[in-house]
């Protein structure tokens, strides 16, 4: 049998694990793209107000939007939606507010993460204004209302009649 130097083969073989190590990291952006496309993990897309205004309003249809909130790790916060639910027409922008209160007598920074259920709806729930992912500084005992403006894409599947918008407030340490 014909034999040749091992070196080229070894170069290839060692390249595989190195590439695959990189692939592990590549899965991070790939996963985010996948989530964006499928709506997995509820990180719904943003939309500019101008884009939102182009959506056709569907006044014949009403969808219930429920708002729920959580505070991660028993953080020292009061955090609740101003209203527990609202009925909306797809295609029309609405604004609601979330109320947050820093129970500590020192400055805290919060960061809120949105999540939408059910999964079938996440792609069609678009926010034009949102306090999510942005660090928010609260002075000692400060209370604040934080607005969210959103629009439901009229292409929302027919069988979805309720969408849940959840915010989880995380306390960012190291203020």
């Amino acid at each position: 049998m014909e034999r040749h130097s091992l070196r080229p083969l070894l170069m290839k073989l060692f390249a595989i694990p190195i590439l695959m190590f990189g692939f592990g990291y590549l899965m991070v952006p790939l996963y985010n793209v996948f989530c964006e496309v499928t709506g997995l993990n509820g990180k719904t897309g943003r939309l500019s107000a101008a884009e939102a205004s182009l959506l056709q309003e569907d006044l014949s249809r009403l969808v219930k939007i429920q708002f729920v909130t959580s505070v991660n790790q028993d953080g020292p916060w009061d955090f609740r939606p101003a209203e527990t639910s609202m009925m909306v027409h797809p295609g029309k922008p609405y604004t609601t507010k979330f109320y947050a209160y820093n129970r500590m007598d020192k400055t805290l920074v919060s960061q809120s993460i949105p999540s939408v259920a059910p999964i079938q709806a996440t792609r069609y729930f678009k926010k034009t204004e949102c306090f999510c992912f942005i660090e928010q500084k609260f002075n000692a005992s400060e209370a604040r209302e934080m607005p969210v403006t959103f629009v439901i894409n009229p292409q929302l599947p027919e069988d979805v009649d309720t969408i849940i918008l959840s915010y989880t407030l995380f306390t960012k340490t190291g203020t």
Partner: protein
Amino acid sequence: MERRTIVAGSLPMLLTPLTALADWELNMPRGVTDLSAEIYGLHMLTLWICVGIGIIVFGAMAYSISHHRKDKGHKAATFHESTTAEIIWTIIPAIILVSLAIPAAQALIKIEDASNADLTIKVTGYQWKWEYEYPEEGIRFFSSLDSKSREASTLGSGIDPASIDHYLREVDNPVVIPVGRKVRFLFTANDVIHAWWVPDLAIKKDAIPGFVNDMWAKVNQPGVYRGQCAELCGKDHGFMPIKVIALEDADYQQWVAEQKQQAAAASAASDREWSRDELLTQGQKVFTASCAACHQATGLGIPGVFPALKGSKIATGDLNAHIGIVLHGKTGTTMQAFGKQLSDADIAAVITYERNAFGNNMGDIVQPAAVKAARQ
């Protein structure tokens, strides 16, 4: 479909004598929702297909093992391939799999359709308890392992678990749902990933911090359905049970009304000034319900396991430290954080009681307002 019902229907008969002994439960419960019954059917269908294939394969092996042996003088054949055979045993399993995948896919699509839900319950997993919130009703409470199970499950407690009703499956505050209505459960978590599993409802869903998952159930008959956390979540993963009580609609409405009343009463109670006698009376009640399991009615605790309160450093020491430990618990011990479970008034009452009972005689009292202040 026809065959599945027959197959699924015949098994309970086979199992009847065994299921009569409740402890020897062999099979998945059929459950109390249409979906759980459908899942049960799928499970049985797959199981019987596997049994069928198993009989053929193991039967052929057994025949071969008993007949094609050297000590029986069997001479080895020399055949070693057959494309026909390979094709047959590729195609037939493929057909069987397709016939399985179709009903499974149909069930899956039904399960994921949570539309037209009648009410929503938000379930939050904590290390190591559940919180239930009915956003539309304004009801919110914690549900933890009941104190009797907790006491018995402590290492070296010496208590026979069999002597405790529903050992590790009993909670202080069960979640209550109406029968015949579609309940949408939302799952999230406070710290690490948990999973909410009630076999009779055929619901198992991960509760993930920062995200919400949803799942639904429409329970067909009133009853008590139990389950527990299914995703490893740390030390007390095995000690965060779930108890669901399904009530007829009228009873459910009554329960909702009671919960609202209690919440209002608790809030009103926390806003006023309490007398010493009131605090001591209420404090004894709360102590019996929430503390006596470990610290004992005598306040003497169990030496080496649960500390005594009589003459303890905390109950006879700094008041704020005492409030702090009741509110926040003590990490690394079984002392829970009662801050979210008890109202300000109840915490004030129980602390007052602890400082004045068992011969502690500190003489001080705690007002609900002080607890409220300590929470902030």
